[in-house]
């Protein structure tokens, strides 16, 4: 089993830049009313991990946190 990864977003901090949606559309979306980030899957599969880390790094507002998880579930 490989290490897991959990994504946490902070909608209060989000400025709706849409960078994350461009980088990892399978993981992030924006709502229609205010354009704030919506998490589509909090524990994306491994093939998306690179894109998710890039999205967190490039989030202008620092609203995306990536929590690396150990096998067995302990964060």
């Amino acid at each position, binding site marked *: 089993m490989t290490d897991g990864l959990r994504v946490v977003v902070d909608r209060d901090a989000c400025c*709706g830049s849409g960078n994350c949606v461009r980088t990892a559309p399978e993981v992030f979306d924006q709502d229609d009313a205010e354009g704030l980030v919506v998490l589509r899957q909090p524990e994306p599969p491994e093939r998306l991990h690179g894109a998710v880390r890039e999205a967190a790094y490039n989030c*202008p507002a620092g609203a995306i946190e990536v929590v690396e998880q150990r096998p067995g579930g302990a964060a």
Partner: protein
Amino acid sequence: MTGMLETNVPSYPFGNDGLDPLLPHFAENGDGVGQVRLPTGQLAFLFTRHDHIRELLRSPDFSSDFTRPGFPLIRPLAEDMPRPDGSLIRMDPPEHTKFRRLLTPEFMIKNMRPLEPLIRQTVVDAIERLRAAGQPADLVEHFALPVPSMVICHLLGVPYADHDYFQECSRTLLAWKTPPEQARAAIEDLRAYLAGLVDKRMREPGDDLISRLATERLATGELTVDELVGLSTLLLIAGHETTSNMLGLSTMVLLQHPDQLRQLRERPELVDDTVEELLRYLTIVRTGLTRVAVNDTVVGGHALKAGDGVIALLSAANRDSDVFREGEEFDLHRGSHQHMAFGFGIHQCIGQPLARAELRIALGELFTRLPALALAVDPADVEYRDAVVFGVQRLPVTW
């Protein structure tokens, strides 16, 4: 950062003085931070490193409001210049947050997609008009300027027939050499023009952004008429000046890199990476972003005091060798995802999905439809615009 010698401080903005105008010039003290003297006589700290600028622009300890004491003005303002209502780019939270959320959905990626056929048609028509103009023709006049102008007009509901007027106002406003009183008059003219339009759309709404805000947000009290006028003014200026300068410069840079242009023509799917690399390489908001510290704070290990003015030099960060190998080279295979051409932090460009769609479609069509496109001028003789947003004045081409 006190105690620094204040003599021999370079003046800012830096001139290009015969150096390659595509390369930004900056002075720093070896640690990526320099001090500069602004035209107002005020001193400001200039940040040039990618990591420092990320930290600075994400920090809540800085304000974008130019009426705050210590704000680093890159050019003098007319006396008692008020902060215009609705000018999102000059607001801080929580006011900024409210306006930003109101506007974001209008420019979201998914809401830009339906606009793509219109952008493509606008581009194709412009190429036809360029052809009809006869060779050589000015690419700026016939392509780079009209395409983004027509698109933003469509989006906002501004009649394109008025373009001579609003383009003239915004050029005057953005040129460095414009005296403060004249710049103020230009912005007031633009606001008066848009006030007329808002008034009209309140009575006869159409299917456009100004009409939507006028019908949905004025009645609820979420926006005042003055704020709507201010927002529209900002969008009209930001919506055509930036993309238009990118189109002119991008065409020039691609024509000067024939090997890479050939690869782009052979593999059109490279266009997304090409656009990102052009954004990085050109960084048209060349004089950087200005902020004032509102608290004592630290950026990149440098202590700053409340009231200190800072400049985040995006053009330097976008060539930082810690992040971009051989950053002074244009390389469309670089995959420049970390560039900050659209800024960073909560003010990061709200129009970036639109700008990217326009650049991708316009450059793609231009180089496909005009396979023999070439500069009709020696690159050394190209005239640059001495303005807040960097660009070429004219770009004579043949095809």
